[in-house]
């Protein structure tokens, strides 16, 4: 059993706070991804779990034992680094067996574990090679192999795919997922790439400015973001944020975007949004896929509007259209055959059943 628990964990570098009170419970066998922009404290958090950084305040427990003052080697963890950190003078076999040798594991067991890990990662034929004779993807596998042979309680990954090219990154992402399905070890994975976070994680932890913004499954974060930051960080292209007001006309609650455009609020949300009528600094959050071309049949909560298109970006399976609303550039996703032309007006459709209303003062999704 290897749960990892962080309680009010702080980290300061010379009075500069890097992590400002993180609380997190990671279940046994869970794959957790810490994601956020650079400088958000995600790597520092991981390194504190590893024991490579001392914590300024709070508690970290692995498998129920508090490890605040336990050196890295006694925490029973394994870490994969962004630049692989393979020992350049040792071959792959020696790299993978180094930790076991230091622990005085019997030779036969070392051999068995190295070969087993090599088989899982499909690197058996590379065991005699030196790191410099390997490609980036192979080095990454060896780095994972070095972690697997130790059979640790927790795997820690620090942006392991950032040094690979785009195609290899997708491939290795699948590999990492497969390995986790095979070995079922509790994993904490740090990345700045939200696609990696969404595809790999059982639960994603979104961090910003040293704090956790939201913890949830990839679907939770995508469909029910708690804050404007999460709403904007998860999803590509990013969610549109359009300044709006709530007003009431003929008994119906409406989201007003400027003088000419107003959409009725979906019925199931009217009660929730009622208190914000007439309040300033409200923002409508609408994902690009909820702005589409008009269609013959009308579904509930969908509303057509005419709009002058600024830019058209054909992507193949869809076309992105950009236009300006309330002085903000807004992105929509339309069918490639919908006839979107730059600098021409187009009839678009907004699907408000997936709208978010955000208080711009607090950054909270209402």
């Amino acid at each position, binding site marked *: 059993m290897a749960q990892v628990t962080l309680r009010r964990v702080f980290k300061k570098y010379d009075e500069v706070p890097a992590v400002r009170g993180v609380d997190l419970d990671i279940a046994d066998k869970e794959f957790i991804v810490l994601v956020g922009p650079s400088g958000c404290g995600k790597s520092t958090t991981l390194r504190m779990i590893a024991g490579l950084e001392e914590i300024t305040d709070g508690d970290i427990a692995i498998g129920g034992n508090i490890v605040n003052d336990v050196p890295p080697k006694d925490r029973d963890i394994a870490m994969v680094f962004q*630049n692989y950190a393979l020992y350049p003078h040792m071959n792959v076999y020696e790299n993978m067996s180094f930790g076991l040798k230091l622990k005085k594991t019997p030779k036969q067991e070392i051999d068995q574990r190295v070969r087993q890990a090599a088989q899982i990662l499909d690197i058996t034929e590379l065991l005699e090679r030196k790191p410099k004779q390997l490609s980036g993807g192979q080095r990454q596998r060896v780095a994972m192999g070095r972690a697997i042979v130790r059979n640790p309680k927790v795997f820690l990954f620090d942006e392991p795919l950032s040094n690979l090219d785009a195609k290899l990154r997708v491939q290795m992402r699948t590999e990492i997922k497969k390995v986790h399905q095979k070995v079922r070890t509790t994993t904490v994975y740090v990345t700045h790439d939200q696609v990696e976070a969404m595809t790999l994680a059982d639960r994603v932890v979104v961090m910003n400015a040293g704090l956790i913004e939201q913890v949830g499954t990839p679907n939770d974060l995508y469909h029910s973001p708690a804050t404007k930051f999460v709403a904007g960080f998860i999803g590509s292209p990013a969610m549109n944020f359009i300044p709006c007001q709530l007003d009431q006309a003929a008994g119906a609650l409406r989201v007003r975007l400027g003088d000419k455009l107003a959409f009725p609020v979906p019925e199931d949300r009217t009660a929730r949004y009622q208190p914000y009528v007439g309040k300033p600094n409200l923002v409508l959050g609408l994902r690009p896929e909820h702005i589409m071309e008009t269609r013959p049949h009308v579904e509930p909560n969908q509303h057509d509007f005419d709009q002058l298109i600024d830019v058209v970006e054909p992507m193949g399976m869809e076309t992105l259209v950009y236009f300006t609303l309330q002085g903000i550039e807004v992105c929509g996703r339309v069918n490639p055959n919908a006839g979107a032309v730059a600098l021409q007006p187009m009839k678009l459709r907004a699907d408000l059943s997936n709208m978010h209303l955000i208080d711009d003062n607090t950054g909270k999704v209402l």
Partner: protein
Amino acid sequence: MTSAATTADAIPRKGKVGSLARQNRWALRGSYAALSVFVVVFLVPPFYMIMTSLKSSAEISAQKGNPWIAHDPTLENFVYLATNAQFQRYFFNSVWVTALVVILSMTIAILAAFSLSRMGFKGSQVISTGVFLTYLVPPSLLFIPLFQIVGNLGLINNTWVLVLLFPTLAVPFCTWIMIGYFSSIPRELDEAALIDGASYPQILLKIFIPVALPGIVAATIFAFTVGWGAFLYPLAYLYSADQAVLTVGIVRELIRGDVFAWGTIMAACVMAAAPPIIIYTFLMDYYVAGLTAGATKG
């Protein structure tokens, strides 16, 4: 694309003025010319040394024919030195002094550099700079105060004084080289070893020393040169023949008043120069090997 290609075709080709290939060719010719001058300036003295060492005293004093070629090459100078007990003594003294100086200096330098570059304790930055500054004090200024210290220690005219003093010249520079080299080793490498369960001494022995071998070779060559080639300190501190080392011994033994035994002097110089040349050639292979490739991405 198409329009760009058409434009390129339309431009008339006036030879390859300023092309990269041409520039490279000229750079290559220029560097060969400069290197040739360098080679001549630096290789003529050793060449003359070797030629003279192969001449008999008669041939040297005859002043006939081309002085750049040994017309009647002989090994008599080398045989004389190899069988001369005094010369053997100098050679032996130089060998053991240098060996101890290298071992002592490198041990201190590697340990100091590892702690200064990796342990990040308070003031490590200041100490690193301080170490280098001590190297900037000219040894020729130091030997007078050092004479006082050595005298008080009762080590005047004792070869061990060199084992004590040479590291003070070699350690700062060796430490500086090793700090630079250790700092270039990515920090993730020791962190990975730390997680793998290695202690600091194990990290140094099993990771840093093998990875930094080219740097260690460079520093060792330097320490060796300090121990083997020094003239001023042995001249100042050692006066009796049995304590002298090779550099001073050659001058004392083979120049008697105004009589210069040129053939023997040159043969002694060749024999004194041989060990560094052999060691340099042997270690250069390691030096060039570039062992750090593949440690991380790149």
